[in-house]
């Protein structure tokens, strides 16, 4: 019942997103959309997915879009021509897709084809073969580890892409000016800064709990990485980018991102060296189950490192670009007033 209510709310919010012209409101609505879909995933028993969606959809993606809006302007211009052809295409495609769903198995039926193949093996045998209770983690990190390796490389590549597109060479003079702005701002955000200072250690602690408890409950490297990054981003937002860059060196974070992927790949190479297949953890230790535990721990650690540092690098570059643009604008204003 609750899932029907949540889905209807999702549709209402999606329609509101179409109608709104103020991009700030649209971004806030996408945050609500992410949180609602996370609640829907909890209702569908997908606790790991809900965890990730709550951290990513409602947290980091909203934040990144807000940073971009401050650079590009928050008003959407209305188009003059009526989008009737677009409406026609969408209606046609939607109608065909709905016709296609008529052959789908009903929601929640246990004899649907998807439940007949491969998943019974995961559910029945994973305890003997992998030895950890959370089936999602054992499939993610052991049965389909090669797949996950690909995903981690995609995330790493996206991080490099953002770095190449937005990287700004920083001069020392820039930093000092930003510092002086920060000092004057310091009095203004006193309450939230103190509360955030109290909370950030707990967020780090929670991220580590999620990282290492992923074998037994919902959690794992992806979620932990996003939570870890969100704590650093919170710090960077409240205390200014230059302060955050002094605390966490960006070059160091970039190296960590690469090291995470390297750690993941090395586990595969070591298992090849020990005479098994790529990412076959059984050969990592004399006892296959202990080998599985060791392999999953290592690759989850690699995933966590890569995801956290790529998220931090992405945020630092967006915020750095924004500071660079503001600085350039100020310099231009000064020149024009001098003329």
């Amino acid at each position, binding site marked *: 019942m609750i899932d029907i209510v949540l889905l209807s709310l999702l549709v209402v919010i999606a329609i509101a997103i179409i109608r709104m012209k103020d991009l700030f409101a649209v971004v806030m609505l996408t945050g609500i959309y992410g949180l609602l879909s996370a609640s829907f995933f909890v209702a569908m028993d997908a606790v790991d997915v809900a965890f990730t969606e709550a951290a990513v959809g409602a947290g980091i993606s909203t934040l990144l879009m807000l940073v971009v809006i401050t650079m590009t302007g928050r008003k959407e211009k209305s188009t003059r021509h009526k989008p009737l052809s677009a409406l026609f295409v969408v209606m046609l495609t939607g109608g065909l897709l709905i016709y296609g769903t008529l052959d789908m198995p009903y929601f929640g039926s246990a004899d649907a084809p998807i439940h007949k193949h491969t998943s019974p093996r995961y559910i029945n045998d994973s305890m003997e073969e992998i030895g950890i209770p959370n089936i999602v983690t054992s499939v993610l990190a052991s049965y389909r580890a090669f797949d996950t390796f690909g995903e981690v490389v995609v995330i790493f590549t996206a991080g490099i892409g953002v770095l190449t597109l937005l990287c700004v060479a920083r001069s020392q003079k820039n930093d000092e000016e930003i510092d002086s702005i920060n000092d004057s701002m310091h009095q*203004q955000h006193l*309450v*939230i800064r103190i*509360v955030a200072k*109290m*909370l950030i250690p*707990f967020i780090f602690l929670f991220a580590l709990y999620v990282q290492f408890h992923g074998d037994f409950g919902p959690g794992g490297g992806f979620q932990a990485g996003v939570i870890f990054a969100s704590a650093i981003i919170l710090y960077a937002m409240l205390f200014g980018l230059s302060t955050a860059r002094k605390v966490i060196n960006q070059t160091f974070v970039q190296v960590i991102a690469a090291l995470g992927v390297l750690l993941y790949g090395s586990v595969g190479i070591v298992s090849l060296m020990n005479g098994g297949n790529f990412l076959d953890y059984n050969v990592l230790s004399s006892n296959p189950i202990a080998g599985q535990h060791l392999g999953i721990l290592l690759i989850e650690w690699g995933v966590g490192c890569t995801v956290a540092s790529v998220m931090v690098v992405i945020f630092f570059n967006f915020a750095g670009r924004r500071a660079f643009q503001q600085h350039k604008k100020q310099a231009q204003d000064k020149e024009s007033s001098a003329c």
Partner: protein
Amino acid sequence: MDIIITICSGFLLLVGSFLCISGGIGLLRFPDFYTRMHAVGVTDTLGAGMILVGLMMLSTDFLVFAKLVMVLLFTLLIGPTTSHVLAKAAFHNGVRPKDSNNLEQSKEKENTSSIL
């Protein structure tokens, strides 16, 4: 003993839910930003707090109890802070509370504009 705990927690859950609903209605019905924020603050701290305390009384497992205490502590810490930051941001951006003078002024304005 059991029945007393059940009744107490049921009462707390009921009061908490009532406060949440009234906060929601207040958010829709109150006239300006600051009074609306007050409604949200009630939902955030007292409504959620009541519900959490009610659930704590029902929990038999120590781990569940500890987790609920943690959630309660964090909501008590974060809820007022967000309200404070919201109010500060609104005031900084020039949203002023509606008082009776302002109301009269705006009414006068409406009148003059309708005359014009």
